[in-house]
Structures are given as C-alpha cells and as structure tokens.
C-alpha cells in the first residue's frame, strides 16, 4: 500500500450513497488530480461513519477534520484550500445543535468523542473493499492467534470470560452458546451469521457488513475453530444489496489470500463461508426461521427445544450469532477477555451500538459502553430534542421492546435495567418521541408492523395481534369503548404467554409498556375522544381562528367535503358536521388560521 500524506475518507454507507456521496467522491478525486495531489492525497470510500442525517460526510486525516452535507460543488474548495494549503473549510464543518461553535475535528464532537467503538472500530475508517486496510488494522491477527496459539477450549473460555452476550435481541451469553454447540453430538457443525436485521430504524448490522465485512468473516472462522466447524453461512436480507456485494468481495479477497478455504495459515484448519440472501421477512431474524429459510423452506420459527446448538441447520449443531456480536469477537481475542469485561456493567459487558432515530438532533449510529444512561445517550451524544420540543419517551428494542418515559431517563442502559422497565435492549433501535407523538398511535405503529410481519404460523400471534391492532385503530379513531383497555391487556398477556416464538411473545410489548406509562392517554382517547398529543386526526376538531383568517378562500376550494364556507375577505367557518378531518385546509392555509382543538 502506498503512503500518502493525507487520507480523505468519504462515507459510502447506504445513507450517504442515497445522498449522492459517490458524486462528491468523484469530484474530490478530480480536483485532487487537477491540483497534482494524486500522489500525496488518497481518497477512500468507507462504510458508515454514523451521523447519517449529516450525509454525505467525509473525514480528512491526519488532521481529523469532519465535513458534512457535502455537495460535489464543495470539492474544489476542499481540495484547493484544505488539501493543498491546509486551510480548513469552515463553512462545511458541523455545528452541533445548541452549540455556537463549529468543531474542526470530529473528536471535538460529542457524537464521536463519547463513543467507544469496538464493533464499529473499523466501520467508517477503512475501505471495506480492501482486505489490506483491514489487515493493516490488525485484521485476521485474532484468527492467526487462535489458530496458532489457542485450543478450542481456550477460545471458548475467552469468549465466556469476556461476558459477551448476543447483540441481536435476547442477550444470550455467546460463550455458552458456542460451548453448547461444541459439546453437542452431530457432524458437520455450522456457523451462521444472522444478518437479517429487521427492526424498524435499526441498521447497525448493515453498517458493519458494509463498512467492515472482514470482521464478520474473521469472527466466524474463529468460532469454526472453537466449535469444530468448517462451514459458515451468512444470511443477509435482499434489501441490503450493498452489504451483499461487499461481503462477496470480502469473501473472494479472503479466499485469494488463503484466509478462507483449506489449510488456513498452514495450520490444517479449513473454513469457508457462503452467503444466503433472504427475502427480507422480519420473522427470518428469528433463528429457527432463519435456519429454515437457509434450507429453502418457508421462513417460519419452530418450537424450541431442540435449540440450534443441538439441532440447527440441517439438524446439525449450529452457532448462530448476529453481525454485531460477531464484530466483537476479534477484539476480544486480541485484547483479552478481561479488557472487554472491564467495559460496561456487571452483567452487561462491553459496548452496544444504538441507532438513534426519531425526534432527536443527531440521528445515526453510536456505539457506547453498556451502563451509560439514556439521558447521556439522548441529550449528550444525540444532542437532545430538536425544535425546543419536550422529550416524551424513547422506544428501545423496536417492535419487541417498549417505551421509557422521562422519569426513567437516568437508567443505565444494560439488559437487566431495560428489562426492569418493561422493554428490551433488542438489536439497538432507539426511537425518540416528543410531546407531539401520541403514545397510542406509537403502539399502533409497532403493532401494525408486527401484524404485517407475523409469519402466520401460530394462532395467538396471527389472530391476536390483528385483534389488538383493530382495537387500537378503534381507539385512535374515536371508536374506543369501555373494556377496550382490559381486552388489550388480556390479549397482551395471552400472546406473551402463548405465542410460539420470541417475536410473537414480545409482539404486545409496545402496548404493554405504553399502557404502563401512558394509560391516561388511552383513557383520554376512549372516554373524552381526545388525543392529548394532538396527533390522532380523527379526534381533532378543525376550526378557524377568526382573528387570523383573511378570507382568502383557499380552504374553501381545498375542502372536498364542502365543509368550509365564508364570503371573500371575511372570516370563514367550518361546519363540524360536514368536516371529514382530512386536514387539507390546515395544510393549505397560509395564515395559520386553521387550528385544531
């Protein structure tokens, strides 16, 4: 690899690609070449850097300058000023919300500096298509060490000692899972990577696959050595074409280098990996459904036991971990289990990647040590709530999780504490909602998702979630009645207790937790036919503020129901009987004269 005096890393994660980072990169390269800097400055495409709402983003090394919202037109200035003359282009720097100062280096931004990046250690920092860059950053050293210096027992011991737990949702201790599989009777054994990330808003697995695919390959090979397997599968959803492409490139490169295949590093260890592209059903993230899908069957969960560790893929002992879990393995081997176990809390070791989304200033991916408080994550790293609005709750764990209201914001984020609040860590989705969000509507949103993604195999999930959704639809449109809350509670309890798989059992969680913390909102919808957050349209009354109305007539023409009347230049009126609450008049009014009560 050539040495350059400067590296410009251009984020080419899926988020930035959609905001056209490819053109930015090309423009930068053109300008660098034009200035004759081609031998001094290297432009590198990396995986996701995290702050996706700011894309396209780039970092310039060695200075560590972070640029955001780049356009191809900015390239000339960056090249001629920064890359040639060393002058930072201030107008392209990021200014965090609430801060008066721009930050030159990314290190000066809380978003970056408060993170501890283990799973994401390379993501956004290396060219994911270059195995050399991965190797340069200690890639495959852990595999080398494992193969040359460690017995499988020692590897199992190390993973157990690290305290690593599954990052996909349930938090099962990874070392124990490996050990059970290692001990199970049956051959061949399989190593599977669950890359069927499906929680709405969660995309850490995609980012790792796109940004650092080799780490997953290396970790799977390490597991292969530990459990006595020579075959791995990565099950990745078809909606992640870039991840598939980068994985394919990575696998081919690794094979070329002899890191995958036969007799790896001359140690006699064989291991190879195949990609299986799934049709992207949410339920295929459930491990038994995923294994069924790999085998070509309909992706549906089956009862456990037997667990995959005993009877997994093709009935053989199988380790199945998700992408983020795999990404933690090589650093644990290299730095030692104690290093990892020293991070985090007593029962939740290490770090966790979260996808910040919703009503929060800095959306994107962050990796933080377990035990950090929700307040720190949301208000310091996430930069708080935009528009001066009030924080209302944060939903963790996606559709299997629950919401956490303000009074619990100081709770440390770890598996047990979140469970204590009635939610789960899940795969790390964190959706922040503010005062304008109706919690009944939020529960409805997740239930809609679950209902749409239910595989339809067991009756409680297939029919029960449908009936719950129907009740929620009724409540949010003013049709709720006495006994509806009790029915929701009964159905929640029943489904939780009796659904076949983990996804079904957790499907009622969003309803259970919103009922726990925001029961009064449900009651207001049902009893008073009011939505306290002012979000459920059907429960709003549209009227015209006569002081603001200019009588322009826009609303009269917009109203399909003929509910608005009035003479020109005189304040108009809405007939409540005719109004269908479509909201068009409010959207059209230029004077904010249409209000909802």
């Amino acid at each position, binding site marked *: 690899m050539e040495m350059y005096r400067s590296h410009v890393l251009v984020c080419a994660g899926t988020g930035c690609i959609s905001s056209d980072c490819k053109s930015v990169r090309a423009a930068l390269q053109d300008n660098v070449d034009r200035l004759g800097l081609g031998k001094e400055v290297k432009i590198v495409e990396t995986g996701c850097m995290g702050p996706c709402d700011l894309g396209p983003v780039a970092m310039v090394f060695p200075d560590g300058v972070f640029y955001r919202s780049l356009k191809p037109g900015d390239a000339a200035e960056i090249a001629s000023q920064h890359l040639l003359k060393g002058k930072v282009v201030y107008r392209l720097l990021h200014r965090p919300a609430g801060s008066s100062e721009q930050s030159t280096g990314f290190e000066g931004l809380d978003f970056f500096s408060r993170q501890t990046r283990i799973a994401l250690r390379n993501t956004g920092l290396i060219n994911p298509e270059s195995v050399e860059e991965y190797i340069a950053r200690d890639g495959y050293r852990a595999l080398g060490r494992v193969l040359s210096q460690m017995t499988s027992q020692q590897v199992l011991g190390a993973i157990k000692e690290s305290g690593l737990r599954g990052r996909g949702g349930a938090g099962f201790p990874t070392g124990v899972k490996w050990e059970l599989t290692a001990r199970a009777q049956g051959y061949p054994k399989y190593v599977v990577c669950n890359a069927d990330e499906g929680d709405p808003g969660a995309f850490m697995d995609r980012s790792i696959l796109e940004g650092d695919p080799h780490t997953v390959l290396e970790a799977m090979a390490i597991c292969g050595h530990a459990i006595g397997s020579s075959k791995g599968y990565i099950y990745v959803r078809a909606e992640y074409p870039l991840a598939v492409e980068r994985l394919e490139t990575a696998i081919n490169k690794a094979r070329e280098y002899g890191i995958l295949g036969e007799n790896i590093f001359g140690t006699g260890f064989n291991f190879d990996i195949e990609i299986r592209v799934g049709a992207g059903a949410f339920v295929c993230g459930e491990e038994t459904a995923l294994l069924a899908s790999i085998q070509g069957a309909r992706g549906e969960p089956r009862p456990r036991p037997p667990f995959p560790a005993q009877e997994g893929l093709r009935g053989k002992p199988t380790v199945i971990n998700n992408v983020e879990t795999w990404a933690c393995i090589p650093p644990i081997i290299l730095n030692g289990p104690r290093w990892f176990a020293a991070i985090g809390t007593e029962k939740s070791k290490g770090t966790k990647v979260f996808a910040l989304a919703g009503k929060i200033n800095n959306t994107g991916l962050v990796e933080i040590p377990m035990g950090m408080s929700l307040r720190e994550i949301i208000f310091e790293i996430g930069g708080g709530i935009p528009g001066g609005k009030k924080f209302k709750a944060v939903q963790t764990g996606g559709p299997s999780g629950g919401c956490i209201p303000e009074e619990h914001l100081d709770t440390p984020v770890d598996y047990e504490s979140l469970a204590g609040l009635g939610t789960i860590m899940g795969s790390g989705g964190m959706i922040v909602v503010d005062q304008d969000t109706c919690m009944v509507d939020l529960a409805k949103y997740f239930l809609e998702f679950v*209902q749409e993604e*239910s595989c*339809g*195999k067991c*009756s409680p999930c297939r029919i029960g979630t449908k*009936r719950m959704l129907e009740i929620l639809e009724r409540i949010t449109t003013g049709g709720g009645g006495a006994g509806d809350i009790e029915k929701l509670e009964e*159905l929640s309890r029943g489904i939780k207790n009796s*659904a076949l798989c983990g996804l079904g*059992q957790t499907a009622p969680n969003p309803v259970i937790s919103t009922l726990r913390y925001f029961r009064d909102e449900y009651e207001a919808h049902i009893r008073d036919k009011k939505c306290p957050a002012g979000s459920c349209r059907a429960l709003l009354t549209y009227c015209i503020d006569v002081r603001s109305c200019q009588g322009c007539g826009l609303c009269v023409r917009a109203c399909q129901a003929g509910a608005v009347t009035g003479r020109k230049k005189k304040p108009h009126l809405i007939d409540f009987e005719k109004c269908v609450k479509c909201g068009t008049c409010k959207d059209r009014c230029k004077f904010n004269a249409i209000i909802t009560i």
Partner: protein
Amino acid sequence: MSPVILTIDGLKIEAEAGGTVLEAAAKAGIKIPTLCYLKEINEIGVCRICLVEVEGARSLQAACVTPAAEGMVVRTNTPAVRQARKLNLELILSNHPRECLICARSTGCELQRLASELGIDGFRFSGEMTPHSPDFSSPSLIRDPRKCVLCRRCVAVCEKVQQVGAIAPQERGFNTVIAPAFSDPLGQTSCVNCGQCALVCPTAAICERDQTGEVWAALADPGKHVLVQTAPATRVSIGEVFGLEPGGVVTGKLVAALRRLGFDRVFDTDFTADLTIMEEGSELIRRIQDGGCLPLITSCSPGWIKFVEHFYPEMLPHLSTCKSPQQMFGALAKTYYAEKNGISPADIFVVSVMPCTAKKFEAGREEMNNSGYRDVDVALTTRELGKMLKEAGIDFGALDEEEFDAPFGISTGAGVIFGATGGVMEAALRTAYELITGSTLLSLEFQEVRGLDGVKEATVNLDGTPLNVAVVHGLANIRRILDKVKEGSRYHFIEAMCCPGGCIGGGGQPVPTDRETREKRLAGIYSADRNMSIRKSHENPAVQALYKEFLGGPLGRKSHELLHTSYIVRAKH
C-alpha cells in the same frame, strides 16, 4: 434410552425418553386438549391449545412438542393455562364463520367440540375475517379457507404421507392461507384428489364435493333407472357413521339401506373387482410370456393414476391398462346390462359408493364414456352416503340384512379384499396360481402381502416360476418403490394404492380414519373374505357368464373396448 420421570399435576409419571409431555400426560389419564396435533404426522405446536405450565420456562409450552424430561414439573390445569387455551381458541373462533348449524362437519367438528369442552360461552373478539374465499375448482375436493384454522394437518399429510405437496401455507400473517402454490385453483394443480387432507381436517375447510343432490334428483326421476354399486371398503366403514364399531362388516345392512333409498338395483363393485382380476391377471401373464413391460402395476386407484401422470409419466407403460372396478362397472352397466334389460343407456343412472374422493375425478375423466354416456354418473363417498341415509331417516343399525341384486351383485372373497392394501395382489395371486399351474391353491391367504407396512415384498413360487411382487400404499411409499424400479429392481407385479391402508383408509371414508380404525377395517375386510363361499375371482359364476354371453375372453376385443383405457401425461404443477 432409559425412561424419564416427570411430575404432571403432582403425579409422578414415568415416560418414554424422547416422548412428549402430551404423551406422558395421556399415559397418566390427563387429557390435554389439542387441535393441530396429529400423531407422528403433524407435531408442530402451532394452534397453542395444548399449552401447559412447565416450571422454569418463561412462557407456557405446547405439550405436543415439549419433550418430557427428567425432573420436569408440569401443570396442566392452572388459571393461566386455562385462560391462555381459552383465549387462543376464542381468537381462532373470531376468525371462523359462525355457521355451525349449516356446516358439513357440524357435530363432527373438532373445533366445535373444543369450544364446548373449553366452555366458550360468547364471542368476545370479533373483527376482520380472512379475505380468502372458497375454491370450487376441483371435481373432488372443496377448499373453504374461511373455515380453516391453519392447523396444517392437511399440509403435513399431503407433504409427508403422500409427498404430493399440492397445498402449503401461502401469504403471511393474518392473510396466511393453505392453498396451492400461487393460490392457483386446486383443480389445476397436481393434486391427486386423494382426500387424505379432508380426512385429517378438524373442521370443514377441506371437504369432498357434495353430490348427494344429484343422486336425490336421479332417484326422484321416474324416467331414470338408478343403479348403485358399493366399493369393497365401504361395507366395513359405513356403520361408523351410525356409531357402530369400525371394521364391523355391514354388507347386508348397506344393501338394505340402499334399497330403502330407492335405488332400482343394488349391485356390488366386488363383481367388477373379480372381473379386474381376470383382465389384469391375463395382462400380467401375457406381459410375462411376451416379454412386455414389467413390472406391471395395478391401476384401480385413481389418485395413484393421476400421481403417475403428473410425477412419473415415464412409468405410464408399466400401468395396467385395466379400468378400475368402478369404471368397468359403469361401462358394463350402460352396455351389457342395458342391452340385456332393454333399457336405453340414456336412462340409466350409475351411482357408486366409494371410500374415495378421487373416484369423483375418475368418473369425470373424459375418456370414460363407452356407451356415449358417462360410465359412472356420480361417485359418492362413504360420508355422503351416510348423510343421505340420515336424511332419509334410515335407522341403519336396526336394518335387516339383504342380498345384492344379480348379476352384478355376485362376487367372491377375492373381490372383497380389493378394499385392503395387498388385496388386489392376493386376489390376483389366487387366480394366477391356479391359471398358471392348473392346480388348486391350498392356502388362499398370502400373509406376506397383508398388513399396514408401507412396502411389502414377496416372491411367490408359481410352479417353479418365481414371481417377484411388491405391495405399496401411501404415495410416499410408492415413490420409494418407483425409484427402486427405475434403479433396476426386478419386480413382476406391483400393487399400488394411493391411500395409506388402501381403500379402507381412503379419503372418502368416515372421520376419523386413523391407524386404529384402519386396522379394524382391515380385519373386517379379511373376515368378510373368510365368510364368502367363493374366494377366487375366476370362480365367480357371474363373471364366467359375462365372458360367455358378452365379452368372449379376457383381453378380447370387447374387453379391450369397454374394460381397458389409456393414460395421459400431465404437468408437474
């Protein structure tokens, strides 16, 4: 493996290792309600009715799939268990038409029984119902997804027992429906119409096409001369519809009942079974002597025929060209019988009572119209006949026994055993032995081809000539044997029956048809055989007369025209 000891409801129970909690509980007399469970065929735990509490488990467990483990503590009757079972059943009912009063399975419906047993006393949940509507495209089977509880027993039977795979879950979530791939109409798929799905359906989501109306209409038509033929296997099962023990031989009562219904003649398919032996036996001998296509495979079972046409078209030359006994009967009824009695075939209406749903398809095959009219007008299942008898107010159990009409009511023990797996083979051997060797068979019973084993093989010594035979039933078993034939295994003669157990286990038989009822019906068939005065087809005097008066000899020109047929190649899907 040594047995395990677990505690269920405070009782210490010794259970087989590898068995389930459901089985262990049953052993101790604790009945856990089930819906989707079908022993050995469908153990998938999807209905969530058989839930129990297992100490240490986070949620309730489905007893039908939870392995009994040493030291396990199970409770089957706690408030949480009862509530969850009831709630899940209420949910299933919330997506089920409340049409019990007018439903084909009313009083025999497992869902209905469960609702009663679990004390469902109201419809607390209601909402949208499944968007799928009934499929009337198949001549044999009607699917009604509205009544489907998605237990998947039908899928398991079709996939595992029959290996046809005509139906599977389509779509997802609330819209999940059991249907052919791409929700194609069933009639346009490779469904072989065996009806095993209808046998295992707990509700009326898959039923035979009800043709009783056509039969009532014919009976009421003074211009119609209505004949009925009864398949061998129906005489050991029709009694079940009236609460009699499975396997009881009720031939005489069946004849009496059919006369009460108003049929002009009550005949027996056993007669044409005997005729089949004459034709097929001759075909076998000819193929052996002339070096024809061997093994010869029987062709009585219409599900099996359609299966070959779809999945093994290259094996079609192995099929006997004989029509099935049902179709031989129809062809003769509208030619020989019509002529002999001076009745126009246009005025003859042939009804058959069959243990089979595929017979409806077979009766409708285009080529089956020798007289210019359908050989068989309507093929009823045993279940449909049961309904007609009930509607007519016939107290079946109290009927005095009556005899079939001549000449098509005269038959032998060899004809009766057609109803059981191995029966056609045994009947053929009884005849072939005597025809080939010219000597009298001393022991008529070929035990090696009897019983419920999926594949039965034997080598029979015919006066120095060894005859390699195989008997298979259930299409999954048939696949095994066909693949062996393709690999070069040398058989001379194979009996293939689509349904497990042969016709006694046919898809048109009364529900339940499980292993136990199959065994009892088998025993009934063989006892009927033993009680027949003539037990060899070639000794049937009516058959002999038929050849003499009308057909000439086996495989003759008339036989060829009326009693033999040909097959077509069908697509795999």
